[in-house]
C-alpha cells in the first residue's frame, strides 16, 4: 500500500509526519522538503509506504509533467491545506485539481483533506471556521464526492492519529469484515460501542450505537498513554476503567498474532464487563486472520 502526502510548500506535511512518528524535536523547524521523500511504516505487521511530495513550486511543476508516473501508484492521498495561509487555498485547490485530472479515475473516497495548523487554541475561532469552510467549498468545486475532511494540529496528537487512522481504514481491505466482528461483539456483550486500536493507538475499526458512545470511546483513547508509560517500566498494566453516568468505559490490552492491541468498550449495561471477560479471548481469536490479511 502506498500513501501520498501532498500539498503546497509549508502546508505542514513534514510536521504532520514527524508528529505522527513522535519526532518532536524536528517539528518546529522542519525545512521545506525537496522533492519526494519515502519512508516505510508498519501497521499490524504490514508494511505501508509513505510518500511525501515536497511542495515547492518547481517540484510541483515537475510532478505534474508526468502525473501517472508520479502519483499513479498511490492507494490513498492525504492532501494538505494550511489554515494559517487562507490566501493560498486557491493555489492548493488548483494543484489538487491538476493531479486529479491527470489521474482521471482516482476514487474520491481515497482522498483525505487535512486542514492543518488547526491548533487547539484557535480551532473554534470564527475566522478559522471560515477558512475551513472555504477549503471545503474549493475542494467540492473540484469533486463533490470528496467528503473526508480532517482538522489537524501537531499540538493535538490525537488529531493526527485520528486523521491517519481514517486513511488506514480506507485502504484496509478487511475493514468491513472487522467492523462486522466488532458489531457482533458489542451486541453479544450488550456494549454501546467498541473500538479497536493498534499498539500506536491508531483506530483500526470502531462500532458505535450512537454519538455519545463515539465521543466516549474517542475520549478514552488518551488512556493508552498511561498504559504505555507504565508498560515501559514493566509495571504490567491491566484493565483501565472510567465510570460515566450509569455506565462505564474500559480499556483492555489484548495480545494478537499481529502484536499488542487495545480494545475499548463502553456500556451502560452492568453485565457487559462480565460478558467481555468471558468473550474477549474468543473475540481476539476470531479477528486474528482478518488482521493478518488486513490490507490484502
Amino acid at each position, binding site marked *: 500500500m502506498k500513501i501520498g502526502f501532498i500539498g503546497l510548500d509549508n502546508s505542514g506535511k513534514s510536521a504532520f509526519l514527524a508528529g505522527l512518528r513522535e519526532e518532536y524535536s524536528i517539528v518546529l523547524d522542519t525545512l521545506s522538503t525537496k522533492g519526494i521523500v519515502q519512508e516505510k511504516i508498519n501497521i499490524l505487521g504490514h508494511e505501508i509506504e509513505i510518500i511525501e511530495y515536497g511542495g515547492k513550486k518547481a517540484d510541483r511543476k515537475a510532478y505534474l509533467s508526468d502525473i501517472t508516473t508520479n502519483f499513479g501508484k498511490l492507494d490513498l492521498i492525504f492532501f494538505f491545506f494550511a489554515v494559517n495561509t487562507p490566501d493560498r487555498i486557491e493555489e492548493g485547490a488548483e494543484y489538487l485539481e491538476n493531479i486529479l485530472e491527470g489521474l482521471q479515475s482516482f476514487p474520491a473516497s481515497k482522498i483525505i483533506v487535512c486542514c492543518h495548523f488547526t*491548533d487547539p*487554541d484557535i480551532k473554534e475561532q470564527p475566522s478559522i471556521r471560515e477558512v475551513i469552510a472555504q477549503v471545503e467549498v474549493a475542494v467540492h468545486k473540484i469533486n463533490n464526492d470528496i467528503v473526508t475532511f480532517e482538522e489537524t494540529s501537531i499540538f493535538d496528537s490525537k488529531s493526527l492519529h485520528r486523521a491517519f487512522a481514517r486513511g488506514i481504514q480506507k485502504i484496509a481491505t478487511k475493514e468491513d469484515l472487522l467492523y462486522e466482528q466488532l458489531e457482533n461483539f458489542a451486541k453479544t456483550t450488550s456494549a454501546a460501542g467498541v473500538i479497536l486500536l493498534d499498539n500506536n493507538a491508531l483506530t483500526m475499526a470502531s462500532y458505535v450505537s450512537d454519538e455519545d458512545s463515539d465521543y466516549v470511546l474517542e*475520549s*478514552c483513547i*488518551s488512556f493508552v*498513554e498511561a498504559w504505555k508509560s507504565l508498560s515501559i*517500566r514493566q*509495571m504490567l*498494566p491491566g484493565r483501565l476503567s472510567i465510570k*460515566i453516568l450509569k455506565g462505564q468505559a474500559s480499556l483492555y490490552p489484548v495480545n494478537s498474532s499481529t502484536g499488542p492491541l487495545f480494545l475499548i468498550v463502553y456500556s451502560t449495561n452492568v453485565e457487559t464487563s462480565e460478558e467481555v471477560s468471558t468473550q474477549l479471548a474468543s473475540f481476539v481469536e476470531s479477528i486474528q486472520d482478518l488482521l493478518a490479511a488486513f490490507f490484502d
Partner: protein
Amino acid sequence: MKIAIMGLDASGKTSFLSTLQKKYSVLWNLKPTKGVERDIFTFLDKNISLWDFGGQAKYRRKYLTESSRDLDDVQLIFYLIDITDPQRMDESLEYLKDILSRFESNLPHLVVSFHKYDPDLRGNPQIQELIHQMKDRISNIIPNALYFNTSIFDEKSLWRSFSQGIRKLSSGDELLFSYLAEVASNTNAQGISILDIGGMSICSYVLDEDADWVIESCAHSFLDVWKSINIRGMNPGIIDFDIAKGTTFFTLLTNLSFKLFVLGYFRNKNDQLSFLDQIPELEAKMNAIIDTFFIA
C-alpha cells in the same frame, strides 16, 4: 509575588509560557521577546505575575546594570537552558551567575529547566552528559536549585517544573505535604497526588520511584479523559486502573472550594477503600490549608 523566567535568547522562554497557557498557534512564528513582558497566571485562584525576560544580549546587559530595577523583589526564577545548543553552555552559566550576583541576601528560589529536551531526544547520551555537567556547575554557584528536563512537546514536564517552583513560594505547601504523607501512611498508599484542572500538581506524596512513575504516567492521561467526557456533560466518575503491583484510582474532590482531583496508588483494593473513607476529612483539611496557601 514576582516570578521571572530567564535564560539566553532562543532558550525557549516564550514558547514555554505560551504552551503552559495553551496558546499553541503562536509557536509557529515567535519573535525574540523585547525587554520584559508580563503575564498573569492563576494558581489556586490566585493571580501570579510572571515576567518573561527577553534574552538578547542588549536586554541582558540592561537588567544587570546597577540602576536597573527589573530584578527587584523577584522571589523565584525559572532559568531555561537550551540543551540542544551545547556551544552556549558557558555563556548561559555566566548569565546565571551575573543574575544571582545581583541579589545580596535574599536569593530567589531557582528552578533550572534543561529545555528543548523533546521526547525523541531522551536517552541521547551526549545530552545526558551535558545535563549532568551543567548540574554540577550550577550547584557550585547555588545550592538547592531544582532541576527539570522540559519540552513543549511533553506538557506535563512543563507543569511539573512550574508547579514545583510555584510551591516553593507557598507557606501551606509543607503543611499540605505532611498531611498527605500522614494520610498515605494511615491508608498504606504508595502515592497520592492532588491536581488542579489544568494538570498542575498542587501536592504530591510518593513512597518511591515506582510510585512517582505511576502517578506521573496516569495524571495527565486520566485528566484528559475526564475533562473530555465532562465537556459533553456525561458526568465522568472514578477512574480505576489495575497494575501488577496494585491499583490506581482518580476522582474529583467534590467538597472543595476549587475543582481539584486526587490520584492515588495503592497496593490493593482494601487500601484504596480505606482511603476513600478518608476523603471527607482530606477535603476539610484541604479547604483549610488552601485558603492560606500563599499567606506567610
